[in-house]
């Protein structure tokens, strides 16, 4: 089976790094199918090219053979592919079950998809956004759901993916065997900023993980600094700190606080604490117009329930510090 390992190594040149043991098993199967596919393609396409050239028409009076069928040959080329498919099926099912069967006593993390962030909640009450910290060499079970539309939690390095479905919990597990940062994508189309719904899995040593769990990220921080952290985690994908342009998909936060806002229904209001609070928690209540006069698309999700009072106050205070 040495050739298989070599093949797998070559196939995985184009694969993401292997962050789990299952990922290397996965790449072996993938390598096997790639090789089997290459052989079949060479046989079929090679035969095609060879016959086409060898039996090229020489004159318009060419006689051709009259061969209608060959039962034994046809049985062979139906049955042999069938056998190969069954090998692939059984092997693939084995890996599928490995990927889907969560070990008992796995460490559990709740995952919430929300346009366009990933929120993580640990049993200790610790929360994080777009950065999931987990201990190395520990089976981790994710209990996934969505607060709005479908999303899909995808970690290429672990070869795992699971849709986040509103109204139900889905599961995914992995056991990372390397310390490091691994990319997370949203793989189920979820609207405007689907491609920016990115996160990281940060695999750390068990000691570092315990320390991180105890750590209160907002401890001893000024309100505005808490707000800045929340902004960087949850708002930055749409609300950027540059002057608003015609291509902006959401209002800029620069100088927003205190400004008079023009709304799509032709009313206006000053951006005070109450306005900011309402816009975060119930974003569709007032839709702002662009500089050009048309309304921004009402795409912002409502954050009611997704932010603590401390974070909300922090955001308001942070906005006050942003001058044009």
């Amino acid at each position, binding site marked *: 089976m040495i050739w298989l390992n070599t093949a797998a190594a070559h196939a995985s040149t184009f694969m993401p790094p292997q962050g789990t043991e299952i990922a290397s098993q*996965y790449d072996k199967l993938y390598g096997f199918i790639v090789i089997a*596919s290459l052989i079949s393609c060479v046989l079929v*396409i090679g035969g095609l090219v060879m016959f086409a050239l060898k039996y090229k028409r020489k004159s318009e009076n060419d006689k051709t053979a009259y*061969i209608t069928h060959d039962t034994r040959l046809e049985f062979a080329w139906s049955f042999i592919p069938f056998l190969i498919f069954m090998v692939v099926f059984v092997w693939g*099912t084995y890996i*599928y079950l490995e990927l889907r069967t969560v070990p008992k006593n796995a460490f559990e993390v709740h995952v919430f998809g929300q346009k366009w962030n990933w929120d993580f909640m640990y049993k200790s009450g610790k929360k994080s956004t777009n950065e999931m910290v987990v201990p190395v060499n520990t089976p981790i079970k994710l209990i996934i759901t969505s607060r709005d539309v479908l999303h899909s939690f995808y970690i290429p390095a672990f070869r795992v*993916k699971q849709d986040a479905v509103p109204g139900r919990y889905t599961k995914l597990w992995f056991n990372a065997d390397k310390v490091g940062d691994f990319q997370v994508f949203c793989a189920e189309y979820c609207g405007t900023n*689907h491609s920016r719904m990115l996160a990281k899995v940060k695999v750390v040593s068990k000691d570092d993980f315990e320390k991180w769990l105890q750590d209160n990220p907002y401890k001893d921080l000024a309100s505005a600094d808490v707000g800045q952290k929340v902004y960087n985690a949850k708002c930055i994908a749409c609300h950027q700190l540059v002057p608003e342009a015609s291509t902006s998909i959401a209002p800029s936060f620069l100088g927003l606080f205190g400004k008079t806002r023009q709304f799509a229904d032709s009313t206006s209001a000053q951006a005070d604490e109450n306005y900011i609070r309402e816009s975060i928690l119930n974003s569709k209540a007032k839709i702002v117009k662009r500089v050009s006069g048309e309304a921004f698309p009402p795409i912002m999700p409502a954050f009611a329930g997704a932010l603590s009072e401390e974070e909300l106050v922090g955001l308001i205070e942070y906005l006050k510090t942003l001058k044009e």
Partner: protein
Amino acid sequence: MSASHAEGKNYLNCEKGLWSWLTTLDHKRIGIMYMITVMVFFAVGGTFAMLIRGELYSAGRNIVGPETYNQFMTFHGAIMVFMVIIPGIPAFLGNFFLPMHLGAKDVAFPRVNLLSWYCLIVGAAISLVSLIYNGVDTGWTFYTPYSIETNNGTTWMVAGAFVMGFSSILTGLNFIVTTHKLRAPGMTFFNMPLFVWALYSTAVLQVLATPVLGITLMLLIAERVLGVGIFDPTLGGDPVLFQHFFWFYSHPAVYIMILPAMGIVSEIITAFSRKVIFGYKAIAFSSVGIAVVSFFVWGHHMFTSGQSEAAGILFSFITMLVGVPTAIKVFNWVATLYKGSVRFDSPMLFALGFLFLFTIGGVTGIMLATAGLDIHFHDTYFVVAHFHYVMVGGTLMAIMGGFYYWLPKMFGRMYNEFWARITFVLIFVGFNVTFFPQFILGAMGMPRRYYDYLPEFQSLNRISSFGAWTIGTGFLIALFVIIHSIRRGEKATSNPWGAKTLEWTTSSPPPHENFLETPVVTGGPYEFR
């Protein structure tokens, strides 16, 4: 009619004026109207494809913002699926040649045939109303609950797809009845060309599967307009139910797209290797087999949706079974070349190109059918590459091949062989340059429907964009080749390729009711002895 035949009249010039076309009951004229319609939609859908590749040329913003990009991607998908590939072969080439292959004067229900064209036009018009309401950004799959809450013209697009579904159902119904009832004397089922077998299998799928899509889309409209709560979780509905309904149609729909293409390839390969097809019955029955099994594989689109492991394993297994009849067809086509007399005119080049690309599409299909592997590949560019290899590398290559093959019959004119071969080279090479890198992108983990991507994906995306523009150039030249051929091409004889099926026994272009005398069939369709 016999008087007009004597004066050299054919179906194109026996009546004149736009009105005579819009009210025609002639299956050939309706086929030509479908041809024009599909070509217009293809130009629109293709333009969206070029714009998509323009936006993806570099990471970050290139030409449009994410909302516009998502509309490009939705319109590209919806137009290409519902308005180009599904009607492309059955309603255009099938309408023209199925009755002729059977030795019939027309389809069984000519008025219904015309109605089906109007369904397509009305449905397409309704879809385009969505543009007035900020377009559609759901993707062609309309997954709930995003498609329920997104604030734009989704309702119109969905309603349009609903109406277009009737076009597909009526065409299918017509083909089934025509095949059963209007065969010429001596035309037994096993004397029928394989194109007819393929269209027949397709027609069964169209009639049985499309109503499920219709119901699903109606429910989605009810959900959006009335808030009935079948799919919306906030009202107690289940968004995954929508996926089950949707793929129960849309997986068979994949075979609605590919089976007729396989039929065309069977015709071209025998004609240009001047040899009886190898394994006629195996190819005919594998079409039927694929059609039947295709109803039971929809769950392979949903390995990561949260469906149970038992369902995942079952769907993986049944999907593997589709591979067997598909492989049989490919082997039979290759075997047909053996000891033949092969000519490399453009139709044959496209048919051989089909075999090359479809084989790659097939083996990557097996990778995706493997439940364990699909978890990683699902919703990445690997899937995008796979289905383009099948839909474009397969179906579109076959449409182009069939177009060149039958152009002399349809218009009585030959096309320019040199330029037609140039279009083949550009489309074939451009296609591989576009989509092969996408397999690698997908394996690396780049998800599909991404407006923006990480920097490490840029070089492969760039190659892909250059490939796409090469394909675009190829199709643009093909358009000129076709127009030039229709207007100025050399006169075609009644059988320029020396093929054996019935359409080549009548004049080019054919007379109003196809054959001056009803043909009497005495043998199989590929009797090259």
